[in-house]
């Protein structure tokens, strides 16, 4: 469990760095964020609001830098991420909360599909060297290199606009339906999720395939695979012996990949106007809604750290060598 303990320390530190970045950036940049805010909120601003904003961004305040920092931490612990400029007077937390389930659902499911499918294809590509699967690789590389949202636009143009198989935007049919636990709503949600999910899978799967394939090729040269064949075990069993070892780097590499997948998903959501975090992120940028921007940054960071922790648990479960003290 030492591995997991060290990782937890790392994640705690990273969270702290993220929080600190959030604290310092507005104070380092030229310009006055409060004036920007006022510009957006226009008539709804009261002197009280201005003072609150000043406090939030450390302008005209009596507290020193350290005092403001402590204040900020205190706010965070109480779950207060500030008030959104553009959705005033809605809090940042409430804005994010409305969008988060959409993103978690989409990204979660798409990532699982991508990982599972990619790993299986990688195993197949390695086991059948020199077969047609090898020709897939350059095409996969292209999709990996192309930015997610480009793939997204392509898919929209092809499947939604031209072929009309799936809807072009939104999370569900906003014109006719209301959220509820009924089949009409659920099926609409699924219908609208297919293309965004497809985009994420296509954009991320190449990495899993290539990684697994390369690792399998190396593992298949190991003596224990030779022994497994010498034992007269069925092919499927021999492959699983190799795969059990070959998958380890993929799992540990998951923590790297998740960052990319999340970023790509945000952009995909924008193309599809999918009501997730990506969508509100775009709004935040366009509206110069700094509290919302910072809040999203923190939430995304925490989510990624959480996913990493999960991957670490899975890894220590799969590799018995990590379970004892090094």
């Amino acid at each position, binding site marked *: 469990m030492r591995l997991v303990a060290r990782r937890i320390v790392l994640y705690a530190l990273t969270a702290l760095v993220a929080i600190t970045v959030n604290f310092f950036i507005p104070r380092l940049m030229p310009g006055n964020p409060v004036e920007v805010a006022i510009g957006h909120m226009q008539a709804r601003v009261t002197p009280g609001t201005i003072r609150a904003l000043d406090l939030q961004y450390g302008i005209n305040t009596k507290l020193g830098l350290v005092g403001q920092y402590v204040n900020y931490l205190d706010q965070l612990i109480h779950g207060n991420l500030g008030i959104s400029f553009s959705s005033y007077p809605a809090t940042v937390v409430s804005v994010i909360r409305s969008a988060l389930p959409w993103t978690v659902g989409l990204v979660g499911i798409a990532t699982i599909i991508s990982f599972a499918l990619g790993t299986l294809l990688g195993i197949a590509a390695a086991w059948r060297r020199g077969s047609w699967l090898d020709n897939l690789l350059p095409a996969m590389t292209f999709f990996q290199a192309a930015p997610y949202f480009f793939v997204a636009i392509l898919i929209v143009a092809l499947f939604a606009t031209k072929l009309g198989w799936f809807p072009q935007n939104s999370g569900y049919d906003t014109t006719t339906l209301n959220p509820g636990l009924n089949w009409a709503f659920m099926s609409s949600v699924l219908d609208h999720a297919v293309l965004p999910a497809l985009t994420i899978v296509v954009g991320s799967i190449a990495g899993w395939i290539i990684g697994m394939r390369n690792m399998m090729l190396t593992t298949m*040269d*190991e*003596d*224990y695979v*030779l*022994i*497994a*064949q*010498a*034992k*007269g*075990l*069925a092919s499927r*069993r021999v492959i699983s*012996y190799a795969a*059990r*070892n070959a998958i*380890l780097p993929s799992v540990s590499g998951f923590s790297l990949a998740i960052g990319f997948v999340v970023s790509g998903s945000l952009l995909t959501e924008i193309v599809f106007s999918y009501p997730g975090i990506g969508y509100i992120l775009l709004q935040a940028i366009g509206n110069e809604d700094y509290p919302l921007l910072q809040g999203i940054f923190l939430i995304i960071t925490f989510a990624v750290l959480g996913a990493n922790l999960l991957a670490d648990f899975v890894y220590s479960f*799969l*590799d*018995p*060598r990590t379970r*004892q003290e090094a």
Partner: protein
Amino acid sequence: MIRAGEPLLEVSGLCVDYGSGDDAVHAVIGADLALRRGEVFGLAGESGSGKSTLAYAIARLLRMPGAITGGEVVFRHEGGAVNLVNAGPAQLRELRWNQLAVVLQSAMHALNPVLTIEFQLTDVLKAHRPDLDRAARRACAGELLKMVGIAPDRLASFPHELSGGMRQRVMIAMALALQPQLLIMDEPTTALDVVTQREILNELMDLRTEFGFAVLFITHDLSLLIEIADTIAVMYAGRIVESAPAGDLYLAPRHPYSYGLLHSFPGLRGPVRRMTGIAGSPPDLRKPPTGCVFHPRCGYASERCVREEPSLATPAAEPAGTAHRVVACWLHEPGAATPAELAGLAPALESTS
């Protein structure tokens, strides 16, 4: 009913290449050898002599780009005789581990690091003895460990939790799980310290006496083979250059290479003598010498040796009735002038140990 002493494995003219076409490297050329039931057959040679390749080829475990390009390997097992070179996947799968098992050099890499010992001992039982249930398999695995001197509670351990010697013992236990007729061992003790080496070899020989399996033992350590093997074949540059009962080879080697090898390690007793070694270095297998492949390093090379390659044959001067031995050297054909060191039954070394 299998009786000891009957032929078990007959290899004739086996050829193995790495790569194909003009770039092919001939790793094994025309290998002939014969094993009997219960026999310990040693295969000796330098690194790169092809001994491991030969062993893997026999077991049909060659990796790409290696490929068998000729010859046959007739395996007379309990169920009948089969030419392993032609055998199909289904046939091979039936034979594997049941009749023919393999022990490799480095047990650290031969045991799957993410699976328990129990799992790796019982997977063959699951595959080949479907009538056993889980408890019976576990009991069997425990027995196997006891057989090699390891406590059965180690079943739940992972390979990295065992020492090198224990891992090698596990490999041997694993190999004997289905009581095969033939055990192919590739440098099984080279990676261990000499004390552990000695222990394991003793245990192995005891097991052999008990179960009666044959062993094809591959190593570069000729002195080891002299102690444990019944028959020894010496390989050089992919060819078997001499094959003889172990004692005869030790006392009276026929091939200049074997002679050189035997003179490369000192005896424990006897007068101090100068070590000679063998001049030169092994040939590049992509461009082997013409004629006899050993001639550039041979002190007795003649003009014929440069021209023609000798084949394995019984030495002409061998008295009738002696145990079967063969050598590939022009010095031993009828009418050739054999040097005294390579001809006599008299000890070739000053004194025996």
